[in-house]
């Protein structure tokens, strides 16, 4: 317990933007063939540093086959909630779930990121026993502690009962139990986030474990059996209050990005693929008159490609779907970054008018058919995937891998791990930094990135940016 709130906690998004820039980027490393233990890489991102753009520390886990995916902090700016009255915890521990193993690692980043080490390991049995859920995924710190979304229910293949969210204590990391009291029609899960003062949560749907663990199941996709709904929840009452179906053809509604400024009651969600035309889409959701609404506000078309440039999975279509697998919203809620993992493009939309996104910038890198190299000349396999934005909005970092088995289906020629960064122009526009290209150890692929002191998909705020 500290005497003052952690200096990386900020009352409003504006204050977070004014804070000192990040010096380290934490990146998850996964061993796609499960031959090595997964790891956490600490990357130096301090401009001018001798080791800039290189891994300066690695925490290697003691187990194999965890499949690291997403992760998060034990505490963030949400601790300054006027309701909590208890801001005296530190942003100190990274909570890393193994998506395949259901094991959860707690990593201590103090006294220095260069000395990060394992603090605690929560074995899968504890998660199964206390929650009946499996395959932990998204981590957010909030009013009741650490919230963890899961993709699987009980049983070996995770299909016994629906997946959901469970709560962990933010200091002891004890698994406390299920979060939902009334889940309504929700049976699938992926991402979730919230508006704390307005007291609502939004969650999305990917798929059940048999639909992703051994690769994408094309028959299920074409039969529209992946997730396509958004669920809106009363956060404190833990009740599902509304479900919006985006339409069965809008397969895989993934990342949910609410506006950071809590006065704004809207947000976005990305849809991976429309099975009628291979388009990807961005949807805007908002609350008005006590009800939630959602509409498709941007689409990204597939790109035709000759059969020989396509993996077997796509040869019948003669085109590359954009595959929007991640989106991220800048701290000032101005730019939405959209990863097109299939076509190899990072798009930047101006979303100041949230229901009319305007394309403001774009860079091509990688891609199934385009295979655009990095401007420094290096090859970039895969496409832009997990994206993270610096708090000040000036730098956008991303990695290239989606998920072990899916990588192999869409990019069968292999995918050496890569992490790149683009600088953002004052009025939009993106340009890849020639001097930032992180090489990863042989046999590892990078996934989500977390920035020292918080980033644009971690912190939630309780006061508006006036």
């Amino acid at each position, binding site marked *: *317990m500290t*005497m003052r*709130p952690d200096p990386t906690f900020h009352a409003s998004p504006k204050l977070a933007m004014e804070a000192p820039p990040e010096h380290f980027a934490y990146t998850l490393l996964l061993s796609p063939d499960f031959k090595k233990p997964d790891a956490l890489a600490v990357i130096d991102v301090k401009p001018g540093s001798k080791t800039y753009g290189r891994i300066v520390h690695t925490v290697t886990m003691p187990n194999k086959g965890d499949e690291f995916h997403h992760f998060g902090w034990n505490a963030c700016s949400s601790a300054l909630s006027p*309701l909590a*009255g208890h*801001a005296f915890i530190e942003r100190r521990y990274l909570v890393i779930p193994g998506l395949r193993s259901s094991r959860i690692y707690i990593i201590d980043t103090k006294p220095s990121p260069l000395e990060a080490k394992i603090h605690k390991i929560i074995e899968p049995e504890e998660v199964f026993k206390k929650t009946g859920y499996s395959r932990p995924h998204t981590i957010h710190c909030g009013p009741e502690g650490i919230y963890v979304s899961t993709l699987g229910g009980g049983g070996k293949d995770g299909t016994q009962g629906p997946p959901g969210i469970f709560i962990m204590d933010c200091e002891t990391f004890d698994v406390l139990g299920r979060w939902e009291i009334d889940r309504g029609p929700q049976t699938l899960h992926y991402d979730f986030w919230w508006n*704390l003062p307005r007291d609502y949560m939004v969650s999305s749907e990917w798929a059940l474990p048999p639909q992703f663990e051994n690769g994408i199941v094309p028959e299920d996709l074409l039969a529209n059996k992946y997730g396509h709904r958004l669920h809106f929840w009363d956060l404190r009452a833990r009740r599902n209050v509304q479900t919006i179906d985006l339409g069965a053809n809008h397969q895989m509604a993934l990342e949910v990005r609410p506006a950071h400024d809590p006065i704004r009651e809207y947000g976005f969600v990305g849809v991976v693929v429309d099975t009628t035309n291979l388009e990807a889409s961005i949807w805007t959701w908002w609350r008005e008159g006590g009800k939630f609404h959602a509409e498709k506000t941007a689409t990204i078309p597939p790109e035709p490609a000759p059969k020989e440039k396509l993996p077997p999975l796509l040869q019948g279509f003669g085109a590359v779907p954009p595959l929007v697998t991640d989106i991220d919203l800048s701290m000032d809620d101005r730019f939405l970054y959209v990863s097109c993992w299939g076509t190899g493009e990072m798009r930047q939309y101006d979303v100041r008018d949230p229901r009319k996104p305007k394309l403001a910038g774009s860079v091509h890198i990688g891609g199934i058919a385009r295979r655009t190299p990095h401007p420094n000349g290096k090859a970039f396999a895969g496409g832009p995937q997990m994206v993270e934005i610096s708090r000040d909005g000036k730098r956008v970092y991303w990695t290239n891998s989606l998920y072990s088995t899916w990588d192999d289906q869409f990019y069968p020629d292999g995918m050496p791990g890569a992490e790149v960064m683009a600088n953002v122009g004052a009025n939009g526009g993106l340009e890849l930094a020639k001097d930032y290209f992180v090489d990863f150890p042989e046999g590892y692929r990078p996934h989500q990135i977390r920035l020292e002191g918080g980033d644009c998909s971690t912190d939630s705020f309780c006061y508006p940016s006036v």
Partner: protein
Amino acid sequence: MSDVDTTALWLWLAIIASGLFHGINPGMGWPLAVSAGLMDKSPRALLGALLPLSTGHLAAMLLVLLPFALLIALTEWQRPIQIAAGIVVIGFGLIRLIDRRHPRALARISPARLALWSFAVAIAHGAGLMLLPIYLGLCATSSAHDGHAAAARVIDQNLAMALLVALVHTAAMLGAGGLLAWLVYRYLGVRFVARSWFNLETVWAVSLVLVGAAALAVNVAEWR
């Protein structure tokens, strides 16, 4: 001024001081008023939040004080009750010192229910207990004036005193918290929320122990 009047004066000052202390403690809710004002873009919403926050706090004070208003009507038991109250307050302070975990149930209260939140937070932190020994002291000084009054009248007096103590305390709290909320809302900005936020848990727990110990010492000494 007689000794009894001097004692009463100090006790009233203690009531006001504890109100000011509760008011500036962010844990008792002034940042909620700032948030309400900012979220609704209206100073009226800030004032509107102060009302339920004060009501909840007042109710929590009364919940602790009122049972004792009835109890100490048993005048021959006045000293033992005061001593027992002192021990309870010390005990609660010690528990707060040792068990630093925040009651998780508080996190389940919706941000829309400010009065309930304020009530629950005050109860959970023993805010009313801090007033209890002071209140009992005031009751003792007023009965010292009266000599042997009828039990019914003593109860009425004690109830009126409990209401007055809770009102004065809550008014002081509202004044301090409201002023701070207004300054942050209007002039200082939300940066001040994190800047001003000191960990008062220890100070709070220690002040409970001190208030209880002072009451215990005075009463044990006078009893003899």
